[in-house]
């Protein structure tokens, strides 16, 4: 018998009813583990980023030359409506929430989430929303624009089912986000490891808490608005209909509260991720940690209260316009403080120029350009000039491409080793970054010029020759293709690195937060042992303790071994 190995060890314990292993995709689809849910959400969000790009490029192709007839007005309007819903509801928000849902429990040293089934339902409601939105292609997608303003979105003006599909889709997705947010709020409150006081929470986990509360505030508002729209359209409601006691401006208020809050949510998530990345790659702790956390919370509150900033041309009292202006201009302080502290962390550090830091720097730059331009839209008289011009398109895209795409990609490159156990290719990341940076500038700077100088309007399926915006639009179209190519490179990089990337250790970058204490990818129960958290940099404490224990006694401890 020597030399002959049994093919299988004989069973020592026979367990009755032990579940048999199902195919991997069924395991993931039915899993309520926060890592599986988060991973599917992140993957789906990146897929929808690709679809949003396709729609954006089709629109930019139509707007490449004046009075183009490539797309019919109806097709253009459908692309516009799909693009808005896809970019916001199916890409930017779920990417942020997916990252939070995967990482926040790890960062606080939890073995799972508090209400896992809620998060699982949240994910599948979001997916269901996406399916409903795109099944619109089977009949007619919405033609009501990015924000389907009533009364245009009422039955009288758009009698086909497109708007209903839009409303059902965004409603399902929003309900899903709210459920995920409930789970996150509960988890962050109840499941923190011993010693993980709120003041020791990583900034990204703080951002998760802030964004979840924000979603709990704005999500139901949108759900109410969507319900009212569906009642108006299908059950003879009069919520937004003029003349029977309804108010068209009601939809504007409710929807802008949501969209403004979502805008803030996307930026808070991005800044939270960047605040994790910069200290790790500068090799020093974040400057003004308390200020950054406080500022992110302030952005959520003040930013959402600035919703009327989108309605400065509507017939509302001037006092409310000044209220919106106060709130918007007050945002200069918290946003400024966050960016100040991020850059202050870099100054004096030893920067390791890896992909996450590169994308983080690009995000800071793009967000600063976007927000500084957005600032002009909140100055009341200036809004009367700039509102709904391509200047607004450019400002919003700088801020949100900066936040969701550059910031999202910084987070993706940073946490990819944790999610998959492999690292993303650095060369491809660098090429992708510079292509995207060039593309963003080419695509959106000309729109600033066309909007401010010539008042080109947004959402229009064509522009006219002789209005002085032909060159701007052509350059913008070229830029959009360059940007899309850059984004595609990162998506390809993420797919290829799944199997082809260099294997990563559990602590790939030398981070200070607890997700780096888990394996890459983490076990289903996250941690074999839960650490006793003593500071806001628990992983450094663990590294120091290990170094201390394994150090040879005769060797004098150097400075990295002294426990703070």
């Amino acid at each position, binding site marked *: 018998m020597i030399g002959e190995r049994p093919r299988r060890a004989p069973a020592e314990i026979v367990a009755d009813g032990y579940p048999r292993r199902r195919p991997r995709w069924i395991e993931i689809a039915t899993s309520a583990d926060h890592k599986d849910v988060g991973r599917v959400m992140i993957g789906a969000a990146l897929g929808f980023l690709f679809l949003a790009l396709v729609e954006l490029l089709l629109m930019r192709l139509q707007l490449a030359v004046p009075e183009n007839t490539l797309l019919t007005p109806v097709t253009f309007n459908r692309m516009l409506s799909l693009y808005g819903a896809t970019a916001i509801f199916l890409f930017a928000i779920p990417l942020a929430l997916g990252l939070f849902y995967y990482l926040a429990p790890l960062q606080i040293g939890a073995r799972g989430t508090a209400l896992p089934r809620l998060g699982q339902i949240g994910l599948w409601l979001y997916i269901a929303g996406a399916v409903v939105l795109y099944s619109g292609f089977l009949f007619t997608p919405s033609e009501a624009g990015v924000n389907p303003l009533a009364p245009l979105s009422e039955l009288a003006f758009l009698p086909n089912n497109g708007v209903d599909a839009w409303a059902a889709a965004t409603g399902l997705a929003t309900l899903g986000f709210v459920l995920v947010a409930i789970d996150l709020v509960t988890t962050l409150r109840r499941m923190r490891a011993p010693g993980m006081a709120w003041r020791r929470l990583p900034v990204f986990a703080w951002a998760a808490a802030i964004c979840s509360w924000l979603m709990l505030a704005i999500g139901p508002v949108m759900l109410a608005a969507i319900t009212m729209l569906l009642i108006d359209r299908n059950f003879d409601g009069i919520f937004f209909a003029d003349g029977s006691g309804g108010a068209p401006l009601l939809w504007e208020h409710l929807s802008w509260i949501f969209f403004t809050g979502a805008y803030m949510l996307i930026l808070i998530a991005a800044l939270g991720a960047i605040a994790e990345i910069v200290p790790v790659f500068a090799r*020093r702790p974040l400057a003004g940690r308390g200020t950054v956390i406080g500022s992110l919370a302030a952005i959520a509150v003040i930013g959402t209260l600035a919703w009327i900033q989108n309605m400065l041309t509507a017939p509302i009292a001037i006092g409310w316009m000044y209220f919106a202006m106060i709130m918007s201009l007050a945002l200069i302080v918290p946003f400024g403080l966050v960016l100040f502290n991020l850059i202050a962390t870099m100054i004096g550090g030893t920067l390791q120029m890896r992909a996450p830091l590169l994308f983080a720097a690009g995000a800071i730059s793009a967000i600063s350009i976007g927000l500084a331009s957005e600032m002009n839209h909140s100055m009341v008289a200036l809004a009367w000039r700039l*509102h709904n011009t391509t200047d607004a398109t450019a400002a919003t895209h700088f801020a949100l491409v900066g936040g969701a795409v550059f910031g999202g990609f910084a987070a993706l490159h940073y946490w990819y080793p944790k999610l998959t156990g492999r690292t993303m290719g650095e060369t491809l990341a660098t090429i992708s970054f510079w292509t995207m940076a060039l593309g963003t500038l080419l695509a959106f700077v000309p729109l600033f010029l066309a909007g401010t100088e010539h008042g080109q309007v947004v959402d229009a399926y064509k522009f006219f020759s002789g209005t002085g915006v032909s060159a701007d639009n052509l350059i913008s179209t070229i830029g959009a293709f360059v940007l899309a190519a850059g984004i595609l490179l990162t998506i390809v990089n993420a797919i290829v690195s799944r199997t082809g990337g260099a294997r990563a250790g559990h602590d790939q970058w030398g981070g200070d937060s607890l997700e780096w204490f888990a394996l890459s990818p983490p076990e289903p129960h996250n941690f074999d042992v839960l650490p006793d958290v003593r500071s806001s940099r628990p992983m450094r404490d663990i590294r120091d303790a290990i170094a201390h224990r394994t150090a040879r006694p005769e060797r004098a401890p150097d400075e990295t071994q002294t426990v703070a």
Partner: protein
Amino acid sequence: MTPHSPGTDQIDTLLWIGFVAATVLIVAINGALVYALRRYRGERGSQPQDTVDGRRTQLRAGAALSAFAAVLFVLSLIYTEKARETPATGSTGLAAAKSEPLKIEATGQQWLWRYDYPNEAFSYYKLVVPVDTTVELDLVSTDVIHTWDVPELAGKRDAVPGKTNHVVFRADEVGTYDGQSATFSGQAYAAMRTEVEVVSPQAYERFVKRQKSDIQAAQDRVVGLIEKGEVP
């Protein structure tokens, strides 16, 4: 784009203030960022400096940013109030509009603007107004939300069904000014343009009189044809 009304003059000034403020922020943030990335690239053996985490630094940065925001708010308030002022009709303006503005109703409808003049004449697409005269447009809509936007003459405003919004301007020069509706209003939104023709007060009087009689004549003709049974 050259402003041709007192209100848009103020908006233009505020645009420059906003442009300078935004540029200052963008240059300061990106300058510091690029400086940090170039100067503090980690080299072998280099050690990071200790973080200066002073409460004082935070307070100073916060105070500087607050001051920036406050100055911007005050400037913006001043110029917005100036832009909202109703200018008086000038000496070369329409005599009838000396005491109070010439009121014209602008109705947004998918996808055309209709203008109703005080003498019950109306026109589509093209608005004719006298030069150097304060004109108040009452914006209404019969269907969905539209935005009246002729940037050289006035700030844009929404025409919302069931509500009346107002635009006031005083054109300083005879000429034609183009505008485009600026809120997505459905299929032919991009084609929903308008044109303001600024003419002398005499030409304006002639225009509305002739427009009224033309409309009357056309109506009489149609009524006549119906009475004769030539129109079913």
